[in-house]
């Protein structure tokens, strides 16, 4: 009896174990081996041999009040695919498609796809709206599949498109960030396809560790940028106007907080609509503000001046004798108008933009000191969070010929990127210290935590006194010189400098009729909230930057004062004041 009972018990236990093992094996195959396929199937709600739905983190603009506005997000809709092997009546299918989404595909293209009888899946129409997709689904056409689709959407279209970047297929078959922030923060923005379909069994079998520590949730998230959409729109509009008015080759601008390095707006023209890349010239996909180097011309003079003041080789009261033209190493360098000024103080070098004055400071500094200052300013990349950052060309400062230093002092013969230039000039606005320009301020992780990014790297270059003295000279440019003094704002001190550089002629020399115009300014001059850099490359029919970029700069200054309600820093009594705007 006991033996019979034991054998029955063993039989029952063996059966239980067998059933359990069968279930476990079955579960393993369903959830581990074929888990991806089932999750796709569930989400698509239709059978498909395609890959999973596209998923990716968002990129946000930040309004001045802290509201986040999507710069890059996901759109949801449908795609239409056909199975030529079972599509019995292509003409009827095309007619049905046309009634729902007219002109989505040409008749010839549709019929050509339907004629490929060797294939079972051909996608013919993309990015249908939900309503259109459901309407087409309701028609239930044999051989036509209507499948869920998600794609990258840029609500701003061309707004900061070069800096936001694009998502596209690379050498493989996966979508990924290729330019701009999309590429730089790929590790944060990309999504592994199964993140939405975690379930108990799959986790139990394959990712026990993830139940305890969600590594992906600590890495994947959304990027919050410092770009303010309304300021960005204004800058982009101003840059485009200049570009079109003067038929330039390329134009751009950056607005940055000089104290933190937060870039508030960054624009180049020509640009592109990131939602429609079909006919975009690949050359405009890059970001010239970060990747290209230019000889900026006279906006380099404030840096030369500050270096001289910081090194103590002169003071603002020091004078020099300006004779109009000099010869250095057999090369002749002159003031922009070829005229001599006689004995004048340092301030006039900035106010009148005198090349000989800048060359005089370079000579007084000596080659080694000059090289040290400029290598500190431009010798290393800024570390901005954008890909493919270019480096400065400072070869002339490594040679013993003095002409290289003299021309560098007024911005010719050395080439730097616009973002390097605004960082260097930002040191004057920021009490002598360079900060790290950046576009991203925080990462909103999937775990729910917002990780603030720290960009605290500062590089002291000049003393605060030297920076302030140069600021005073640059403020005089706006108050006395720009538009003959009419640009001066009675209630706001604005420091600025124009730059006009000759373009190289491709034969080792410089063209006499082609120029690179630049403009830099910051305000309130002695406690700046904004620094603005503008440039336009090869404008037609105009020689000086003061003619091309002054009005754009002043428009931006007035816009920013109004938009951010920047309080007056001069010309107003403590109680109330009334001024007449220009």
């Amino acid at each position, binding site marked *: 009896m*006991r033996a019979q*009972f034991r054998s*029955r018990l063993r039989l029952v236990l063996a059966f239980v174990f067998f059933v359990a093992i069968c279930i476990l094996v079955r579960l393993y195959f369903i959830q581990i081996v074929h888990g991806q396929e089932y999750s796709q199937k569930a989400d698509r709600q239709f059978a498909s041999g395609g890959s999973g739905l596209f998923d990716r983190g968002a990129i946000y603009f930040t309004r001045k009040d802290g509201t986040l506005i999507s710069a890059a997000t996901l759109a949801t809709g449908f795609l239409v695919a056909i199975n030529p092997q079972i599509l019995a009546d292509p003409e009827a299918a095309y007619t049905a498609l046309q009634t729902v989404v007219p002109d989505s595909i040409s008749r010839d293209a549709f019929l050509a796809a339907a004629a490929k009888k060797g294939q079972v899946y051909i996608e013919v129409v993309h990015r249908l709206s939900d309503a259109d997709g459901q309407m087409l689904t309701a028609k239930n056409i044999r051989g036509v599949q209507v499948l869920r689709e998600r794609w990258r959407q840029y609500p701003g279209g061309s707004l900061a498109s070069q800096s936001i970047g694009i998502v596209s297929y690379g050498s493989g078959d996966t979508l990924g960030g290729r330019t701009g922030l999309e590429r730089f923060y790929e590790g944060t923005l990309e999504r592994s396809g199964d993140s939405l379909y*975690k379930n*108990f069994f799959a986790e139990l079998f394959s990712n026990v560790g993830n139940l305890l520590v969600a590594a992906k949730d600590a890495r994947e998230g959304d990027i919050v940028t410092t770009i303010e959409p309304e300021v960005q*729109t204004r800058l982009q509009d101003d840059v485009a106007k200049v570009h079109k008015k003067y038929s330039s080759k390329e134009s751009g601008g950056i607005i940055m907080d000089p104290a933190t390095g937060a870039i508030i707006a960054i624009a180049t023209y020509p640009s592109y609509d990131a939602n429609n890349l079909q006919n975009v010239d690949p050359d405009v996909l890059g970001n010239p503000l970060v990747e290209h180097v230019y000889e900026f011309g006279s906006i380099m003079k404030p840096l030369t001046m500050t270096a001289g003041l910081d090194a103590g080789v002169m003071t603002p009261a020091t004078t020099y004798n300006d004779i109009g033209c000099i010869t250095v190493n057999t090369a002749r360098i002159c003031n922009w108008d070829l005229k001599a000024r006689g004995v004048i103080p340092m301030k006039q070098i900035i106010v009148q933009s005198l090349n000989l004055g800048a060359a005089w400071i370079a000579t007084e500094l000596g080659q080694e000191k000059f090289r040290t200052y400029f290598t500190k300013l431009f010798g290393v990349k800024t570390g901005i969070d954008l890909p493919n950052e270019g480096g400065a060309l400072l070869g002339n400062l490594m040679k013993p010929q003095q002409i290289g230093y003299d021309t560098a002092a007024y911005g010719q013969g050395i080439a730097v990127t616009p973002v390097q230039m605004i960082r260097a000039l930002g040191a004057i606005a920021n009490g002598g210290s360079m900060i790290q320009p950046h576009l991203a301020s925080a990462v909103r992780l999937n775990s729910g935590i917002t990780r603030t990014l720290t960009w605290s790297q500062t590089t002291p270059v000049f003393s605060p006194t030297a920076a302030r003295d140069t600021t005073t000279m640059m403020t005089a440019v706006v108050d006395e010189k720009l538009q003959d003094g009419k640009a001066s704002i009675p209630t706001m001190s604005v420091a600025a400098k124009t730059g006009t550089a000759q373009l190289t002629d491709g034969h080792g020399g410089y063209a006499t009729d082609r120029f690179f115009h630049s403009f830099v300014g910051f305000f309130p001059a002695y406690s700046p909230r904004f620094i603005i850099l503008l440039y336009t490359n090869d404008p037609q029919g105009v020689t000086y930057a003061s003619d091309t970029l002054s009005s754009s700069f002043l428009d931006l200054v007035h816009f920013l004062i109004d938009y951010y309600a920047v309080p007056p820093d001069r010309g107003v009594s403590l109680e109330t004041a009334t001024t007449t*705007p220009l």
Partner: protein
Amino acid sequence: MHKTHALFPFSLLTICYGVVGVLVVAYIGLIAVVMSSAVLTVEFSQSIKNDVAAVALLEGQYLANVAHITRANVAALGYTKPLIKTFVRAESVTALR
């Protein structure tokens, strides 16, 4: 075995049958819960994505309006610059003065 019989009014085999029965029911229940959870997860995730897309549409309209306002020729619309600007001390926006 005799001791078990002495303690319980039913056999060990019956207990095993009972336990197996409970486990099977629990397992089926667990599968049902997991399946329901998976379906809800997919529905919720799709719902979120649809909402995100709808918000993106509104954001696109907002940005288009900003661009439209920026490009507007205010002079052509009949607006003129103010003749004077008066600066006044900012007041606290709270009721606590």
